[in-house]
């Protein structure tokens, strides 16, 4: 079985990373911004796993990606709790409206 070239995997990760950045910049709903951040985490994880294929004894990339997944899960839990509190306080999850409401 021939192996996929490393450059193709890295290009896929680059595409996913820039899509995540696009979601973070353009979307105004707080939960969609969180989804973009998850996409960025996954692009970074893909790079780590792709390089870990060439390191079969130590498996450092896979170990690092495990800890990235753990931290991403903790981040998602806390961030969604914060979004729920913000929604209860401002009655909206739109980031622009939150900024305008908190000025007055």
């Amino acid at each position, binding site marked *: 079985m021939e192996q996929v070239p490393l450059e193709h995997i890295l290009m896929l990760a680059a595409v996913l990373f820039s*899509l995540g950045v696009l979601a973070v910049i353009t979307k105004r709903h707080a939960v969609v911004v969180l989804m973009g951040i998850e996409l960025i985490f996954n692009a970074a994880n893909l790079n780590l796993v792709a390089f870990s294929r060439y390191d079969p004894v130590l498996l450092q990339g896979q170990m690092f990606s495990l800890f990235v997944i753990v931290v991403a899960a903790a981040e998602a839990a806390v961030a969604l709790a914060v979004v729920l509190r913000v929604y209860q306080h401002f009655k909206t999850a739109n980031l622009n409206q939150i900024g305008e409401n908190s000025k007055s």
Partner: protein
Amino acid sequence: MLFYIFAALAVLSGAYMVLTRNLLYAGFSLLVTLLSLAGIYVLLFADFVAVLQLMVYVGGVLVLILFGIMLSSRVHDKSVLSESVNKGWGIIISLLIFIGLAYTITRASFSSLAWIRTGAYADVLGYQKSTVQSIGIKLMTDFVLPFEVASLLLLIALMGAAYIATDKQNV
């Protein structure tokens, strides 16, 4: 070949997540992206990471995100849609990031690195045909301090999320 199918699925559903205005469609297309990334992890000989991706992301984080969508938007008055702003600047910045990354990837010759050249022909999985045992051994020897710190971090995140999300007026 299978890799390119999964890659096309991941890119298409990621692009649909960015383009759609419906929050629930965005959540479900993120599901497709995460599933195809788990498939790619299997193809890259990372079976434990693939299973963890399925359990944590698809089973945990995505359900959490769907709960967040349901609890933070009023469905009956069409506010489940989210509008986009800064479209021009967003596209310009993400295109610049992608061009920079692609230029770096094409210019860097990874195959000339010594450890990648020797690792390209290595028997990745060895005689065990699985990475679970070696990852378990590494978690208890080389990576025991990050492992314990991660458990402490998860405890703190659990307590913090429960404390933040509690409705304090009704307690």
